[in-house]
């Protein structure tokens, strides 16, 4: 049986993933030319590398179409329902660090915490004739964090696929849930992360699709060991 490892197909994520694998003694070779989206690992038979986009990797892991994948934890948790039942985070790789956070306009000086935001959300309809709106592309993470963790139900999500930090100033939404690494874009747009507003501290991870046949496969354990020791 061939094991398939999905790696990011471009950019820093691709380079960093290949570097971690190289440190683990796993040299990733593209098949054919450098731009090919198929690869293999030097000296190991029966392991295939597929170069995919990072969000596709999460989906393919969830479907069990690939055995391993390197992708951001945010994409795994956003893309898959009941992620922990379907995949396992085998190693945290120490790059691609970014936090998914709840940020409000900095001028909301009365809102420091999620409890404050809960108060504002509860009153919003009465004051403004509509629910509090959140601009985000993280539907699932937002719903889990607001509803399950903080008991806040009364808000609406406005889908935002880019330049989310601009939504509050433009009036497209009241607050945002977005990913940030240095926080500089948030600051530049006069937004502030709530004191308990970090939903997820994400980084690139080696993720394994939970498949029963992995238990008896020595290649699975040794690949995990190698990557863990290199990360």
């Amino acid at each position: 049986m061939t094991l398939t490892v999905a790696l990011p197909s471009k950019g820093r994520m691709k380079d960093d993933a290949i570097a971690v694998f190289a440190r683990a003694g796993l040299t990733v070779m593209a098949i054919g030319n450098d731009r090919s989206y198929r690869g293999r690992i030097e000296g190991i038979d029966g392991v295939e590398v597929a170069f995919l986009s990072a969000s596709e990797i999460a989906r393919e892991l969830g479907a069990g179409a690939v055995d391993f994948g390197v992708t951001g934890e945010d994409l795994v948790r956003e893309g898959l329902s009941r992620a922990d039942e379907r995949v396992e985070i085998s190693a945290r790789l120490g790059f691609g660090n970014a936090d998914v956070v709840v940020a409000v306009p900095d001028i909301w000086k009365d809102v420091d915490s999620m409890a404050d935001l809960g108060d504002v959300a509860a009153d919003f309809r009465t004051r403004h004739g509509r629910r509090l709106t959140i601009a985000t592309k993280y539907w699932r993470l937002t719903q889990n964090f607001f509803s399950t963790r903080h008991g806040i139900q009364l808000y609406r999500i406005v889908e935002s696929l880019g330049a989310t930090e601009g939504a509050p100033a433009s009036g497209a939404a009241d607050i945002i849930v977005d990913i940030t690494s240095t926080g500089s874009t948030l600051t530049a747009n006069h937004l502030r992360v709530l004191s308990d507003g970090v939903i997820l501290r994400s980084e690139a991870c080696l993720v394994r699709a939970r498949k029963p046949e992995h238990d008896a496969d020595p290649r699975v354990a040794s690949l995990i060991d190698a990557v863990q020791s290199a990360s």
Partner: protein
Amino acid sequence: MLRKSDVEALSILCPSFPSPPPPREGEGLKLLRPSPLLLWVRLVTALFPRLELGRTSPSPLWGGGWGGAFVIGQARGGDFSSRTREGLVMQFGAPDFAADLARALDALGGVRVDIPVIQPAEPFLDMAGEDLRRRIFLTESETGESLCLRPEFTIPVCTAHIAENVGTPRRYGYLGQVFRQRRDGANEFFQAGVEDLGEPDEAAADARALSDARGLIAGFAPAADLSIILGDQAVFEAVVAGLGLPAGWQKRLIHAFGNEQALGAMIAKLASPEAAAVPDASVAGFLANGDVAGLEAHIEEVMQETGYSTNASRSPAEIAARLISKQTLDSTRLSARSLAALKAFLALDIPLDRAATALSEFARDAGLNISVAQQAFEARLAALKQRGEDLGSIRWRAAFGRPLDYYTGMVFEISASAENLVLAGGGRYDRMMTLLGAQEPIPAVGFSLWLDRIETVRAGR
């Protein structure tokens, strides 16, 4: 969905089935629409003019007029009919008692409404919150409007009532399929229920809703051992108001009512408040001096400088006002006595026949004046008694509520004890009609029956 035209179809099939009275001019919702069933029945009766239709014995409860065991409801997969020894039996998705239940609902005096299966999703998401999104079936129209498969009936019944602009009080009944993503159980199942809109005598309307729900279940699942619990948000609100908490805290607690975990966390915080967050340096001066006007002006100035509109979202005045009240919110500590009272109240869980005494004893011991809520509570008890309900078999659980902002008073749940299945849920939702756009407040109470669960309980008898 049982359409009026389906009923018409049945009356062709089975002449003793009474035809519905024609709707009066300008009254009620649009009820008539040719249904596939009606067209099909017309075809069948044309082809087989002498078709003999079988009858089974009338059901013990709703016997009298029509007792035929026809299954009516929405057609599934075109599997319309099969012949049996008794004659023609229609097979649809509805439970076999749906036709009888529909008649029983009519007998309760409701106007039966026809709610389209495809609904705009906005009102549901707006009312119940974004969390509902993953529990309903969503789709989009070509123009980008969010649509969903009807996840429940109350909101569309209310919206239809507002759109038709008919007078109140008015009682609506419904029976049909609803669609929800569930981890356990089918994603499409039948619900039936009643909504009473605009009945000014709230105690009587509350009692009628609970009593009708219990009566229907007792009729259709007679062997079930029922447990009924009742809660009352208005009493909780009165207790919270009586404790003398700042308005912000009252709102928080009321908002969390029915969510045990959230409420517990808040009470813990009231018992031992954390150190208040230090106000931001840019506003600390205004707060220290109590300079409200200066604070507002400062916020407005910053918003303009940073390109934030002062009217698209929260206004400077709103932020300033909450900033000031927050200073007291964060440091509010509930006295040991008040805390004990709140906990004692939430722990009340007793049969309804002893509830009035228990509530007045609680109020006396806690030194709270909650007489207005108490009177309404007792009026409801009296109305239930008057309807012949056995108060000893209903439990009042003081902490029982639904954490949605349109519920205002009584809530109840009727379960089959042995199977541990909720068969009916109901409650008062006085705030919903205005949230949905009614020009003036319309009191509202209703209940919904879970037909699939009632069927399970019936099968086990």
